[in-house]
């Protein structure tokens, strides 16, 4: 097997060094970007990021990093998670920055759910915001019932999204391509219209959502260590990080399992997969239900965090936003979704100057990515069945 050259002996000894350096740099960069308040600071940091990415691509560092990451992924993933926790504590008194971090994490989680559908099984779902909203509305309704522990509410949010997708199963399984797309689009519009005209669920004004509580600890009260008081968003950011981490592990396992392999087969050629005995309907059903359940869980936590929800937050455009995260990052690429979620959430919020033009700029950005880098920011790598053999051992 032709091996790719390793540039230095030091790197060969510690193949994760480059990845670790990137994680630490990204963490520091995220902190700097979140704390930056002046427009020139933000602009400078963004220019710096673009320059760094271009330089990495030019010098071949990006390719090195890619190999290293493939070689020692579990270690680097754990390190990235640790860096995220450190980042959250480093931002502990900045309300807005923590809200951004938690929002990014929840969008990332939702995008992972969509990734199972779009990226693995190749099913279009244009009602992502509807299932996300189903979770949020579940949290709002259950919040009034004190008997239900809020952690269970998250699970119930997922279950409600799953139950709502049951009536769609038959049309989804029978249709393909654009015909399947219209089923989810119709459901998304239906869901939003239903919420707007339904008086019990608050109508267009929406509902208040009770905060998260865990073992008697109210998430809307600020955690205090000694005499130091942190923002209450630390609670939500940590829980969102835990949720994102959990879903990440789950989806990664799924991808590496036989189910994931079957999903790839179904996406690439449904007819061929069926000929080889892949249970196409069962695989698609699994992808659709699991993805929507993940959307529902992340939506439930999102609802609790922002504490007020309205139908206007779960429109067709919001579904498109979620789909854009998946496509921008690269279909089926989890880390790509993470980067794309950060871009989609942070960029409009940090560039206050462009606040008014953000949707316009954002849609043009997605168009440019689709035209010139159709595989997304971080394309999903090919499956490696024997990682150690790849390295030439």
């Amino acid at each position: 097997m032709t091996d790719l050259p390793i540039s230095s002996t030091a790197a060969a000894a510690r193949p994760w060094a480059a990845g670790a350096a990137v994680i630490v740099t990204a963490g520091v960069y995220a902190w700097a970007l979140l704390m930056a308040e002046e427009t020139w600071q933000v602009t400078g940091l963004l220019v710096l990021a673009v320059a760094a990415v271009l330089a990495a691509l030019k010098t071949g560092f990006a390719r090195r990093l890619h190999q290293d990451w493939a070689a020692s992924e579990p270690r680097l993933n754990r390190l990235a998670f640790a860096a995220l926790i450190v980042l959250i504590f480093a931002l502990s008194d900045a309300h807005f920055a923590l809200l951004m971090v938690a929002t990014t994490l929840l969008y990332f989680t939702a995008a992972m759910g969509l990734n199972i559908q779009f990226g693995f099984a190749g099913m279009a779902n244009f009602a992502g915001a509807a299932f996300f909203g189903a979770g949020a509305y579940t949290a709002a309704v259950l919040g009034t019932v004190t008997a239900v522990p809020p952690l269970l509410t998250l699970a119930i949010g997922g279950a409600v999204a799953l139950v709502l997708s049951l009536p769609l199963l038959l049309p989804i399984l029978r249709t393909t391509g654009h015909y399947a797309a219209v089923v989810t689009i119709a459901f998304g519009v239906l869901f939003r219209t239903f919420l707007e005209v339904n008086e019990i669920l608050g109508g267009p004004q929406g509902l208040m959502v009770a905060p998260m509580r865990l073992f008697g600890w109210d998430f809307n009260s600020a955690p205090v260590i000694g005499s130091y008081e942190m923002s209450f968003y630390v609670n939500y950011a940590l829980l969102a990080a835990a949720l994102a981490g959990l879903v990440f592990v789950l989806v990664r396992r799924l991808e590496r399992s036989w189910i994931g392999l079957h999903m790839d087969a179904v996406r690439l050629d449904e007819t061929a997969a069926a000929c080889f005995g892949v249970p196409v309907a069962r695989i698609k059903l699994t992808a659709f239900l699991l993805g929507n359940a993940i959307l529902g869980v992340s939506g439930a936590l999102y609802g609790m965090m922002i504490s007020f929800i309205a139908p206007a937050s779960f429109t067709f455009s919001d579904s498109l936003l979620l789909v854009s995260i998946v496509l921008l990052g690269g279909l089926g690429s989890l880390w790509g979704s993470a980067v794309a979620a950060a871009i989609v959430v942070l960029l409009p919020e940090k560039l206050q100057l462009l606040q008014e033009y953000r949707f316009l700029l954002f849609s043009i950005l997605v168009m440019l990515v689709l035209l010139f880098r159709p595989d997304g920011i971080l394309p999903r790598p090919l499956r490696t069945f024997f990682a150690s053999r790849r390295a030439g051992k």
Partner: protein
Amino acid sequence: MDFGLIAQYLANGILLGTMYALVAVGFTLFFGVLDVIKFSHGDVLMLGTFIGFTAWMGLAAIGVTNPWVQLLGVLICSLGGTALIGAAIAKWLVLPLKKAPQLNTLLITLMLGTAIREAVRLFYPNGSNPKAFPALLPDAAVELGSFSLRADSVILVLAGLGLIGVLSLVINRTRLGLAIRAVAQDEETARIMGINYTLVVLATFAIGSGVAAFAGIMNGLYYNEINFGMGLILGLIGFSAAIIGGLGNLYGAILGGFLFAGLQVIGAALLPFASAYKDVFAFAVVIALMAWKPTGLIPERSSDRV
């Protein structure tokens, strides 16, 4: 329920159906020649309506007061401009992505739709507020009991149906229509037979967009109001109509358009609890129809099955 009310619902349904059919026809034409869904269709329609509105303001400013002349000017500017925009989108955004996965084309046109919508909201003077579209048609009405038949509705429906008829003639009776059908059936063979593929695709997109602009003007004349968001819902409905009718089939799109309008009217008139649920009802029936007829009421001729 008395006769007048039923007639009123019926008239309303026919008008809506004509409008939806005109939008759905575009989707089905584009799908026919390129096998793509151009989701910016609804927003292109909105842009066309705004072009028409601008043309009306221009005509009013230079002192043209005859409503028929104004209407003619509005239609020429709107349909012509929108046809050019549609062809431009096909040339620079849709054709380059011909080899890409379907999802990418769908997404790029969805994003283009967002961009157009936002651009109109931000850059059209006072674009974020609804605009009062002028009533250019005579507002006489015939009273039949409790039912009043408005002259402008009749003219709009007749014009819309006439346009659908002309379109059907163009597709079935002209050389251009023959070329469009040939490309839709088999692109490779059509090229071998000497058909200018790119030109046919551009012409199809121009025709489809122009027809949609007509639907937009219809919408403006009927409701006397236009806004930057009108394209999104009309596009969604048009797409659903084209799908339930069966993509790639002109009559399917017309059937789907009238069916959707019928569902909305039935939802508004007959649902016992509240007419507010009419769209919920219509979209729920769309989902049920997809479960029953997965490739639309008039299916495509070729489809692979397992």
